């Protein structure tokens, strides 16, 4: 089974980590949970 990474928080830091990890290792199973309605905005 592929390694499972859970990210808490879908803002810049969490989504940067998720994107970078997935790009370098596509076999990773990554899921991010965000309590709000919006992920990774540039503000």
């Amino acid at each position, binding site marked *: 089974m592929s390694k499972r990474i*859970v990210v808490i928080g879908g803002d810049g830091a969490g989504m940067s980590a998720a994107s970078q990890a997935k790009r370098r290792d596509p076999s990773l199973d990554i899921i991010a949970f965000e309590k709000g309605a919006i992920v990774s905005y540039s503000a």
Partner: protein
Amino acid sequence: MVDNTEELIARTPEEFKSRLGIAVRTHHEVVQIDRSRQRVAVQGSGGTMWESYDELVIATGSVPIVPAWPGVDSDGIFTVKTLENGRAIRDYIEQYHPRHAVVVGAGYIGLEMAENLRHLGIETTILEQNGQVMPTMDADMAEFVSDALKGLGVRVHLQEEVVGFEVYRGRVQAVQTRHGSVPGDLVVLGLGVRPQTTLAQEAGIPLGVKNAIRVTPYLMTEVPHVWAVGDATQTLHQVTGLPSYVALATVANKQGRIAGMNLSGASIAFPGVLGTAITRVGSTEVARTGLTLAEASAAGIQAIETRIQAETKLGYFEDVSPMTVKIVAEVSSGRILGGQIVGGSGSGKRIDTIATAVSAKMTATQVVDLDLAYAPPFSDVWDPVQIAARTLVSKI
């Protein structure tokens, strides 16, 4: 301000899934971390479920500081952090047409909000508890920023301590301070942020400065298989080596990238921060990096500073404007420790030369010797940062 908030969103959840293969669940809140069984409890519309992890990344961010002032939860009092906050302020202005805005706090957020509110034609007053605006800068540099604010028609009240609010039918009418009352039917709190770390704390993950999560340079917490990045974490100051808390998007994104690399097999350390920051008030650019003289002293470093006045380009250009550069260096080594810049268009981003010098542990002499770009529309033959470095060399 941008006209359409949709322009600000970097990616949608669907894009993360289709382009990157990352599942994103919005409106899902993690309410508990079970570190012994490596799982988290997630609350969504369908109830609460457990999700197991091999590695967990905590990126819970920060929340605006809201003191427990009486009446602080009245209508018309806002914080500014998320897009939703911005939309709420815009909607309130459209509905109630406030005439007097009060911005509490003269840091980066406060200044930007004051300028934007003034731009909308609203009478705006800034209340700051300290004796100067921009408390992360030296008072003499902050004086230029105060002037720029006044130039925009923003009133600035220093050493003004908020104690409460006057409220009528649930809506704010004025801000009460130790000195009296300041009319304000719109109030924006710009008092900085604090890390949102209750979840981590409840899971027994060690916290540090300002209750931010303690992490190794590799961005792992002190609990196995748990990582932390962004505004929720404590970081190290590159110059002093001391723990510090800096909530900035630049830092958050860099930490995220490094944690992502380490999660996929790398072993890379985050070097820490300098507290580099920039903003603009009207046409006045304001920037800082590293240590001030006072901060160097507090860290036990014997330092010296120099302040020079220069111009953004050669004097025969119509749009030339003055700029002031301050540089701080260690006396014994001449090493650059920090700097501050205030001036017209083209001055602020020159802070990056100083930030690079601090990061690379360069001396004032080495900055003087840098081969920087020159042509009359951009600079005098000596860049203002190098003029400051030259002055410093002659002082040491």
